[in-house]
């Protein structure tokens, strides 16, 4: 089908999916016990008020509820929430009633995006050459070493690696690289490395496998038989075909990287979307929590769509469905 129709179909699917996710998330938080307005978040004064003057306390809570629309029927709440999210009208969070969420997002989203994209790009930039090297020198000690290193990189979770990096650069060799905050290039190095280690391993193994399979093909043999220089065979013919297969793995890799940024941001004290989400969830700050999930899901779905389109461009045999 035409590109426009395919795009439309995918966008509609994204909208439907995200609406369902938002609705389900909202309902799940709604039925969960507890509320944001407890002593931890509202201070001692409120719980004292609850004891001393229950009527006033209830009136206060009711005014908060009606301010945020929490006293409407559930189905109305969900419908309104989904509609507002789709039109990017996010309101304010419970925690900071004077700061619109969209401002918080505007400062946090670029940080997380740079972190995630940086990790994926680094993974590709490091992983593809290493994978090609491993494929060309397959079954030698270099190949075994690279493969094992890749597996180790994949096995160690990014947050464990992040804590190890904090240990290394904070305790053993302090001052080499900063381990907190975000703003300078130096501060970006460690988080991106921690995030990308697993991905580098995955990309390396994947590229290697893909290259090994491609190098076995007949057309490679033909090219070599015809006398094409080995380097050109590898770069022009083999690599291009295995890159196509690599694109399919970028989608899940990016999704997993986005999730890992939640953890890495916690450890390196990076004020990104993950930190916002990590604060919002335990406190049941409903607007902020669901909005963060919304934005992150949108990022992932957008990336998946991009990857599918890219796949079509790279491999003309693929038909859009």
């Amino acid at each position, binding site marked *: 089908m035409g590109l426009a129709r395919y795009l439309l179909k995918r966008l509609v699917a994204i909208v439907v999916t995200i609406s369902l996710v938002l609705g389900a998330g909202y309902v799940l938080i709604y039925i969960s016990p507890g509320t944001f307005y407890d002593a931890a978040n509202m201070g001692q004064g409120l719980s004292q008020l609850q004891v001393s003057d229950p009527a006033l306390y209830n009136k206060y809570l009711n005014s908060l509820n009606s301010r945020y629309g929490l006293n409407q029927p559930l189905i109305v709440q969900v419908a309104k929430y989904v509609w507002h999210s789709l039109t990017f009208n996010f309101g304010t969070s419970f925690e900071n009633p004077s700061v619109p969420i969209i401002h918080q997002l505007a400062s946090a989203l670029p940080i997380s995006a740079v972190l995630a994209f940086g990790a994926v790009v680094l993974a590709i930039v490091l992983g593809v050459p290493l994978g090609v090297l491993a494929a060309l020198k397959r079954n030698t000690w270099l190949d075994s070493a690279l493969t094992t290193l890749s597996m180790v990189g994949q096995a160690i979770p990014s947050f464990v690696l992040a*804590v190890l990096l904090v240990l290394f650069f904070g305790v053993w060799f302090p001052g080499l690289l900063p381990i907190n905050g975000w703003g300078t290039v130096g501060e970006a190095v460690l988080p991106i490395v921690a995030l990308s280690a697993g991905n580098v391993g995955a990309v390396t193994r*994947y590229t290697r496998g893909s290259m090994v399979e491609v190098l076995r093909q007949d057309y490679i043999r033909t090219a070599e038989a015809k006398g094409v220089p080995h380097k050109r065979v590898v770069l022009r013919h083999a690599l291009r075909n295995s890159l196509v297969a690599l694109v399919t793995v970028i989608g899940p890799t990016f999704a997993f990287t986005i999730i890992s940024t939640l953890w890495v941001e916690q450890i390196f004290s990076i004020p990104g979307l993950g930190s916002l989400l990590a604060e919002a969830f335990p406190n049941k700050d409903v607007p902020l929590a669901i909005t963060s999930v919304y934005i992150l899901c949108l990022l992932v779905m957008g990336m998946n769509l991009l990857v599918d389109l890219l796949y079509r461009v790279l491999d003309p045999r693929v038909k859009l469905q």
Partner: protein
Amino acid sequence: MATIAAAAGISTRGPRRTSQLSLAWRRYKRNKLAVAGAIVVVAFIVAGVIGPWVAPQGYAQANFLDANQPPSLRFPFGTDNLGHDMLSQVLWSFRNAVEIAFGASLVSFAIGVALGLWAGLRGGIVDMVVMRLVDFMFAFPNYFLSLFLVITLGRNLLPILLAIGIPGWAGYARLVRGLVLGMRNGEMVEAARAFGASTGHIARKYLLPNITNSIFVAIAFGIPFDLLVMASLSLVGLGLRPPLPSFGNMIAQAGGNVLGYPWLLYFPAGIFAVILLSFLFVADGLQEALDPKAGEGHLRRTRRLWFGLRGR
């Protein structure tokens, strides 16, 4: 006779066993890493069972006078800021880890395989509905669904187990449905139907034994992922409530305190990483052993990534 054979290097002990299981075991043994991984996995399970009995102290016992001690004879893994003996904490954590990881995989497996079988066998509208649901689950990261579920269900062992396990059904369902569809029109099933076998009988006797290999591999890849999710829940403040010990909790606390007390990190993080690595080696080995035709190229990698990521 025997000496002639011995001189020729031929064994006279009779034919080797050629059952499927022993063939698979022989393939598995070829992979040294996988065997090492299997040993660690077994040790992990054993530790999960006997850990609390072997631990010198209960997990809640706080020796305030001995807080923040580096590793010593009395506290081989040191103590944390409340004086908990880290060795005991680690030993107690094994049980929670084993229960949650295996339990969550069991839940995903149960829901996923049931739905996948139903969709594959029934076809028609059931198949369409289930596949739409699977596509929905794969469209967004399921991790967030787990977060929502933890908030809804609570932060105890069983709720966390369910929260991690429930969103994972989609991977199994898609796998099983694909396998069933592949076999449904095969000759074996056709012959069985010709003899009048019911659908349930076909499912149990013919389909299930043939898909167990792939399911086994899927579970093997799923368990380390569930461990990872469980540990990460503690990082965002939604893990097991303290003082219940868990690896995620220990790693998160160590991350905060690492500047002063690095031993709090070495042992829990190291052990956790070793366990994850071992599961991955085992899973890879199982895939090689049980599914050798999965191939060496991108197909195998796709499956591995698929199970490891499963749309989360």
